Every structure is written in C-alpha cells, then in structure tokens.
C-alpha cells in the first residue's frame, strides 16, 4: 500500500492572532505545529504501512519552515517527504492549493491519500474532496475507523444522520477525524534516521506552470472579532443566583 499524506503546518492552537500595520496576519515568531488532524492522518498511514508494507510519502504545501514539520513526519516513520514551496500560502485558495497538490501527487504511485479533516488555521475542511475530484476518486470525510479488506476500505465516519459505514474501492481519499487513532511520539532512533530520508523541495510556481494561477476566492481583508461586551457576575446564594438568571434570560436576553 503506497500512501500519500497531505500535511499542513499551522500556528500552534494557543497562538494569539493579530494583524500587523499592513493588515496582514502576523506570523513572525509564531510557534508552528503539524495541523493536529494531520497527525491522525499520518499515524493511520504508518499503521497501514507497518501491516501491509509499501511507502508513506508526506506532501506539504508551505513555506521553508514547513521542512520542520516534514522532518518530524519522517522521524515518526514516513519514508519520503516533498515540500511544495510557497511562501504566501494565504494567497492560494483551497481550489488552487488542491490543483497544485494534485500535480505533485500525480507523479507518485498511491493507493490511498490521507489528509486531516480540517486545517485548524484556514478551517477549510475540503482538501480530501478536492483531491478526490482532481483524480476522479471516491472520498470519505472525517473517518474515525478504517479496515482494509484487499482493495476495499471499510471506513466509518460521522454524518449528520449518524455513524455511517462505507465500503470504498481503492484508490481513494480519506480525511482523518479525531478518534481514528492515538498518534505516536517520536523516538531518538527515528529522529536520527529522518535526517537521511529524502525531502524534496519543488517551487509551487513550477508545479503550477500552465495552470491559470488564479485563486477562486480572494481575501479582501481580515477583521478581528468584535469583543464580547463584559458580562455580569450574579451574586447571592445559589437559589438567588438561579432565580435572577432565569429572570434575566427571559426578560433581558429573551432566549427562553
């Protein structure tokens, strides 16, 4: 089983987000992590490989710093890594990013592509479907379980109706939801080995050659959320507070 894992480097979840004087998102001195959902994607790929053999290739679209995330993935057990270098990622919308990623993946053999359910920075939650569309493949979003029976993957995912079990013929694309597995931690031997594993870098522009490099959606600007007005602390005994709360919810907030 050859597996591609699409991995994104994102801001740490604790990062305070602010805009610089040009109205751009500040990314200086920001701690970067592997997008948490992509860790589930990578872990699952590694488990399949350990069981059935094959290669795991991690592919990422991002700035030069993304090499850290790719090295970390190699240390965890991925065999190869590819960085599609693009320094201003925010200028690419999901549609364009998928087209560029698909071009990179196209050159590689694969049975499955794993992505995370969503990138926690852009909140897109679309890459699996978009890549599947580029390769005309079936895809399932947000899987919490996968079992392979020959060339068929039996996966589970939550839909609005409930937990759905789907049989999918490979090759196929899956996005990983929390609950799929418990990602492993790196060990020293892995970190040392990772240094010798191949990490190719290609310029996004090179891959995009011939594509009309036009994002579908363009960012016109960013705005900070309106801060919530300071609330009110209720006083008194539990009985007094709850009576007052119910009155306020009815008369002031009008929500019950």
């Amino acid at each position: 089983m050859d597996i591609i894992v699409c991995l994104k480097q994102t801001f740490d979840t604790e990062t305070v987000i602010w805009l610089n004087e040009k109205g751009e998102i500040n990314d200086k001195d920001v701690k970067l992590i592997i997008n948490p959902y992509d860790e589930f994607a990578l872990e699952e790929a590694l488990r399949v490989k350990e069981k059935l053999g094959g290669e795991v290739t991690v592919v990422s679209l991002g700035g030069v710093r993304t090499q850290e995330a790719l090295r970390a993935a190699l240390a965890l057990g991925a065999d190869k890594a590819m960085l599609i270098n693009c320094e201003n990622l925010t200028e690419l919308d999901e549609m364009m990013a998928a087209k560029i990623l698909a071009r990179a993946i196209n050159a590689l053999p694969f049975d499955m592509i794993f992505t995370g359910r969503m990138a926690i920075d852009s909140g897109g939650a679309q890459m699996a479907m978009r890549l599947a569309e580029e390769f005309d493949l079936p895809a399932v979003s947000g899987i919490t379980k996968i079992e392979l029976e020959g060339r068929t993957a039996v996966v589970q995912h939550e839909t609005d109706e409930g937990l759905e079990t789907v049989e999918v013929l490979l090759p196929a694309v899956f996005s990983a939801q929390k609950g799929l597995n418990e990602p492993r931690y790196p060990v020293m031997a892995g970190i040392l080995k990772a240094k010798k594993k191949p990490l190719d870098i290609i310029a996004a522009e090179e891959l995009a050659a011939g594509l009309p490099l036009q994002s579908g959606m363009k960012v016109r600007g960013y705005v900070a959320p309106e801060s919530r007005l300071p609330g009110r602390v209720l006083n008194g005994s539990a009985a007094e507070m709850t009576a007052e709360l119910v009155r306020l919810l009815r008369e002031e907030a009008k929500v019950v």
Partner: protein
Amino acid sequence: MANRIWVYVEQYKGKIRKVSLELLSKGRQLARANDCELEAVVLGPETAELTATAAAYGAERVLFITDERDFANYTIREYTTLLAQLLQTDKPEALLLGDTARGRDLAARTSQRLGVGLAADCIAIETDPDSFLKFKRPIYGGRLFAWLESANRPLMATARPNSFLLAEPDFTRTASVRKEKVNLAIEAPREVVKFVSKRASKRPELTEADIIVAGGRGMGNADNLHVLEDLADTLGGVAIGASRAVVDSGWRDMEYQVGQTGKTVSPALYIACGISGSIQHLAGMNSSKVIVAINRDPNATILDVADYALVGDLFDIVPKLTAEFQKLFKADN
C-alpha cells in the same frame, strides 16, 4: 432570465433543514437588494409542502431535480456531476449551501469540478458593488475573520448553521415550480454506504441547536452528567455539548465535543458548566449569542466571556436552575 441566486435545499427525514431555511431568508434579502430572483434547488421529487415552505421563506421559484432511477447508487460524485452540469447550463450568479457534513463535501467537490472558489462556513454574506457578494468566514478557530470575494461565477458559499437570521415565514407567498429530469450514466459504484447507525440521542444536532447545555471536567464523572440531562430536558430536550476533557475521559462520544477540534456552534444560549474556557473550547462556542457560565473558580476564563457568570458549585447551582426553569414554564402554561 434575470440573474438568479440559488439556495441548495437540503432535506433531512423529509423536512427542510433549518440552515437551508436560514439561507432562503438571507437569499431573499440579497436577491431583493440586487434585483435577482431567488431559486430553491431541491434534489428529489416535487411536493406541495416543500414548495410552500420554500416560498414562505423567500423562494420565488423551486427547482425540483429528479433522476430516472431515483438517485439509486448515487454517491457524492454523481451528485457533484449533476449539480455541476446544472450550474453550467443554468448559470446562476451564486449558489449557497448549508455547511452541513454533506453540504460541505458537495460544495467542495462541485467547486473543484468547476474550477471556482468556495467561501466555506460563512457567517455573513453582504452585497458588494465590485464583486456582487462578499463573504465573511472565521479562520484560526474564530480568532479572526476573512472577507472573501471572487470574480468567478457562480459564486459559491456554504453557511454556518445558526448564523443567519431565520425570517418569519409568510405562507401567503407562492413560488413557481420548475422540474428537471436527469438521467446520469452511473458507473459501477466505487463507494457504497453499508449502514448508518442512527444517532441514539433524540436531541437536536449540536450545530443547529438553539440551546446547548455543556459540561466540562468539572462534571467529575460520566454519571454526574445526568444533572445536565435534567436541565436540557427541562429546557425542552435541547442539545448537550462537552469539552474535550469530557470526551477524552470517555464520559461522552466525540460527536459531543465543542471546540477547535470539535464542533463549532452558535446557539442562542450556551450554558457552560464546569468548563474552564480554554482557547480551544472558546473557538467552538464564542459566537453563541448568550453565554452563561457556571464555575466554582472565580478566575476561570469562561467567566470573562460569559454574559451571565455564576460562581459556585455546579452541583448546587444546576439542579436549582433546573427547578427555576420548571417553575417558569409551569407559570407559562
């Protein structure tokens, strides 16, 4: 034909999903402001009830699409083909869908097929003189918003449930009906849904819920969550949510988790019990209209974002709150 805005009407158990009605409400405003027609797009056979409801919320025309084989063996790929073809022949200015599990998948595939952008998970859509519509969507877990625009047509967006005001339905309105019959060549399916284990809970889906009672690590154990169940039942069987601590402890399944790596919710009322208010939890619920926090630690962050903060032991407060609501609703009757 005049310019049109399409709203994709998603059904669930034979009823239009609330987010689709919210989009029809918004779509009507946008259509009026731009001299457009609002068309509701339904995948499925015509029913008088669907037409009446779509009309009441603002649709001027309802487009019913039926398949000769009743969508048998349809997977998301076939739905994408169908929708993409319709968009290419009909050329509406915009297509708006609900940001449900299926809506997001369908929107993503369709936009990729057409090579146009998608503004996913929008919380606001406004008319714009340059780009017709502009879309506001949260990024970084709601810590920032991006305004998006596009020169592509159709403009595509999915809307976060509970973000657009539901209009008062006007059942005196009528809509014309248009029917399209399609016959897609279906190849041997490569994905087959084997079964669906229906959600056990009768409570509303978290993202569409009007009221959410949520518990955190302060609940202490799984059994204690019954105090939240009691409160939720008293409020009319409303939804229950949880922090990641509750899910990681195994007290509740993943589908209950609210936050950056769980669900993003914007109910009218969110009651947080024994939740500290971590940045990741806030990311999932800080767009709630009214937040109540019950926490025994006067320095808990959640109290800072709460509209009404109650400092004290939740096991003392929550049952009393339930009793107060019972009193209130009894007086109402």
